[in-house]
């Protein structure tokens, strides 16, 4: 495998083979990030196409100060967020509240069911996971996806989304709490009993 910086430099100088190599190297990552954000295959394909069109147009501005995939992710997230803003102008989004530790004490919570393949292949359950992530406002979804699904660090996420460290942390906390509460409801409604 060729050195990535060499490929980028060639691509910046207009080498079409090198540009193709970059696209093929990152198409899957970009598509999956877009799919996680958009929650729709066609929309994700649109985002992926726009991402690479923008990336190739702006390739000369990439100075190698960050990793190439971070630069590409930033473009993908900007395009996704823009599209979601347009789409959600008329849609009401859920509002997220801050979790409260006092409400946890004395609730007599119990262990959730074991992580089983039967549960994870249950269609209703998968739909519920998807619905909850879809309902999550984009500003929270983006942080959850980058931190918990893509495995980026807090610093990488804050740079990529132009947020402060506090913003990343609080959005991540609210997103996790919202998603957790949705699952809790499902387990309660499906005879998962508290102590």
């Amino acid at each position: 495998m060729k050195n990535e910086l060499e490929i980028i430099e060639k691509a910046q100088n207009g080498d079409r083979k090198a540009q193709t190599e970059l696209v093929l190297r990152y198409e899957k990552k970009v598509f999956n990030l877009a799919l996680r954000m958009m929650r729709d295959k066609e929309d994700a394909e649109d985002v992926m196409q726009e991402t690479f069109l923008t990336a190739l147009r702006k390739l000369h501005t990439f100075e190698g100060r960050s990793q190439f995939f971070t630069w590409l992710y930033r473009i993908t997230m900007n395009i996704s967020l823009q599209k979601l803003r347009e789409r959600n102008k008329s849609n009401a989004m859920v509002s997220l509240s801050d979790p409260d530790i006092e409400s946890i004490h004395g609730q007599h919570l119990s262990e959730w069911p074991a992580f089983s393949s039967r549960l994870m292949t249950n269609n209703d359950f998968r739909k519920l996971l998807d619905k909850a992530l879809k309902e999550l406002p984009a500003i929270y979804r983006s942080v959850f996806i980058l931190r918990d699904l893509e495995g980026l660090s807090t610093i990488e996420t804050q740079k990529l989304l132009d947020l402060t460290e506090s913003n990343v942390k609080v959005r991540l906390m609210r997103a996790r709490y919202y998603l957790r509460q949705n699952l809790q409801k499902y387990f309660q409604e499906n005879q998962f009993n508290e102590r």
Partner: protein
Amino acid sequence: MKDEVKTESSPFEKLCLGLSHDMDADICKEIAAELEKCPDCHFFYNSVEKTIEMYREVENNKNLDEDMELRLLRILNLEDFKPCDDE
């Protein structure tokens, strides 16, 4: 709702943010102590952890359809530059 976090993290914030991969050792110790004295916190922490695991499981990487890749390369005017499989 504003996104500002109080300077002093609440126990919940510590519990929830403790699930991050880049958590520092002091927070880790604090969380362990908190979980030991509060069974509900332990179950809560565990359920947030499971939530993340479940999402990781269902949100696994999908492959691009071959048509999708062709459409992408065509839009970028790169379809003639795709290396052959034996290259």
